[in-house]
């Protein structure tokens, strides 16, 4: 397996050029640049709000310096609160080429699009020469999420991903599972898997924080489709989701944008700190995918029972379909058919090995179904976090 070596020493599995808007008012200009550039590797991300937010700045900095990213074009309207100078400086200091365009200073829509397109062309030529070097499985960061879960998810796709996670962790990779609001009811069994009792206590508190947050919002992380698919309660969905974490010890807890310090299994606490503010912790699956990518995930393993079609900007998304009926209806969108387990035609461990092999192939350049179909979903909204406590990342 070969990776793109970045100037900061990190290694990526894709060579993406990001065009990013810093407020909704700059979205159309940025999107027009991406549409006209017409290349799978030139991708759009952005932040809609006008007010500044430490979390969204951190996430944007981590995304723009992600190992899968080679260079960045920043599109600002000019009057928004987002700290464009700091974002540009962070990208530049990482050794990546970056160009910033301020629409109010560039003469409006047409001129900014033309100037942006020219910059995209220049950066594209520059990053085409990014050196390719050997890269091992132990250098990968892999995240997992479930979306559109049903009663089959927790029996087939999720434990199969757990089995793949065990293989990855054994080989030294860093694996991230997340959404503490979808682990309500699993807090004690997770704490028992933590490498230290102090980490276990932090995990329990993180889940309690999630429960309080969702209670204040008035809804748990439970969608009508979950119920139609046979899931009745949030804790039932949690038990199924939890199976994605496999059987390894839990080595640490991180928050969105924190990079796992070394290989191992990490829980990501995605629920904001402090009083509930800004609405739901993650308004949709894509917001969680973005957070895991901001924490360095090269690849996302997405399990689904009802059938989700999303992919992502920056990092490839591998879809693992839990339900054999859904697989038959939506095979074009699914990379792995874990529904075989439901039909009694395959064991969980063999599907786990199939996922592991695909992770290696995708890291080696093979396109996932969502990549080939052009899915590049992206969502980033407001949040607030305190830094992670020392007990969350025990030294090893």
């Amino acid at each position, binding site marked *: 397996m070969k990776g793109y070596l970045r100037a900061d020493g990190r290694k990526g599995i894709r060579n993406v050029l990001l065009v990013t808007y810093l407020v909704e008012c700059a979205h159309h200009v940025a999107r027009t640049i991406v549409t006209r550039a017409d290349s799978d590797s030139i991708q759009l991300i952005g932040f809609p709000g006008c007010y500044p937010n430490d979390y969204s700045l951190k996430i944007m900095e981590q995304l723009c310096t992600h190992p899968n990213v080679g260079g960045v074009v920043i599109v600002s309207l000019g009057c928004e609160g987002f700290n464009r100078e700091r974002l540009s400086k962070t990208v530049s200091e990482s050794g990546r080429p970056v160009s910033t365009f301020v629409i109010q200073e560039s003469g409006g829509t047409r001129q900014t699009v033309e100037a942006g397109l020219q910059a995209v062309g220049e950066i594209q030529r520059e990053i085409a020469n990014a050196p390719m070097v050997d890269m091992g499985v132990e250098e990968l960061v892999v995240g997992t999420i479930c979306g559109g879960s049903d009663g089959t998810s927790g029996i087939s796709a999720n434990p199969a991903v757990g089995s793949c996670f065990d293989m990855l962790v054994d080989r030294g990779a860093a694996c991230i599972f997340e959404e503490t609001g979808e682990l309500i009811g*699993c807090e004690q069994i997770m704490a028992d898997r933590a490498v230290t009792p102090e980490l276990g206590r932090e995990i329990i508190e993180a889940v309690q924080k999630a429960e309080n947050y969702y209670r204040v919002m008035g809804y*748990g992380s439970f969608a009508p489709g979950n*119920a139609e698919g*046979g*899931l009745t309660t949030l804790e039932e969905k949690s038990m199924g989701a939890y199976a994605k974490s496999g059987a390894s010890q839990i080595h640490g807890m991180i928050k969105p944008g924190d990079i796992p310090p070394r290989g191992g299994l990490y829980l990501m606490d995605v629920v904001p700190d402090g009083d509930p503010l800004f609405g739901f912790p993650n308004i949709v699956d894509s917001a969680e995918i973005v957070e895991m990518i901001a924490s360095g995930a090269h690849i996302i393993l997405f399990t689904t029972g009802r059938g989700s079609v999303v992919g992502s900007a920056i990092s490839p998304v591998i879809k693992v379909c839990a*339900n054999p009926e859904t697989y038959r209806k939506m095979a074009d969108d699914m990379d792995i058919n874990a529904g075989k387990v439901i039909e009694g035609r395959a064991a969980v461990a063999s599907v786990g090995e199939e996922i592991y092999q695909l992770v290696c192939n995708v890291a080696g350049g093979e396109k996932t179904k969502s990549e080939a179909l052009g899915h590049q979903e992206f969502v980033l909204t407001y949040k607030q976090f305190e830094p992670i406590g020392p007990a969350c990342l025990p030294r090893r």
Partner: protein
Amino acid sequence: MTDKRFVLLHPSDNVLVCCARVTAGESVVLEGKSVTLHTEINVGHKVARVDIAKGARIIKYGAPIGSATDDIAFSRHVHLHNMKSDYIPSHTRESKQGEER
């Protein structure tokens, strides 16, 4: 013995999970007993493995996943109509559990 369309996930569970759709009126064998299903059971849905009393915990994966809001007889569908979360109420497009529909 149990019909292979229903799976027991953990020995302490009091529900079975459906792996292939079964229609209403079909006869199936659950836990060695032949029963006629009252309602259609779709993939991913649960049926009672034993008689479950109102207020008792529903156990799946060997862990509690909520409580019965009604007496649930052996072989009956276990879902929003007869169980609830012990944490945060579930919701459908029409309503939240426990509210007027």
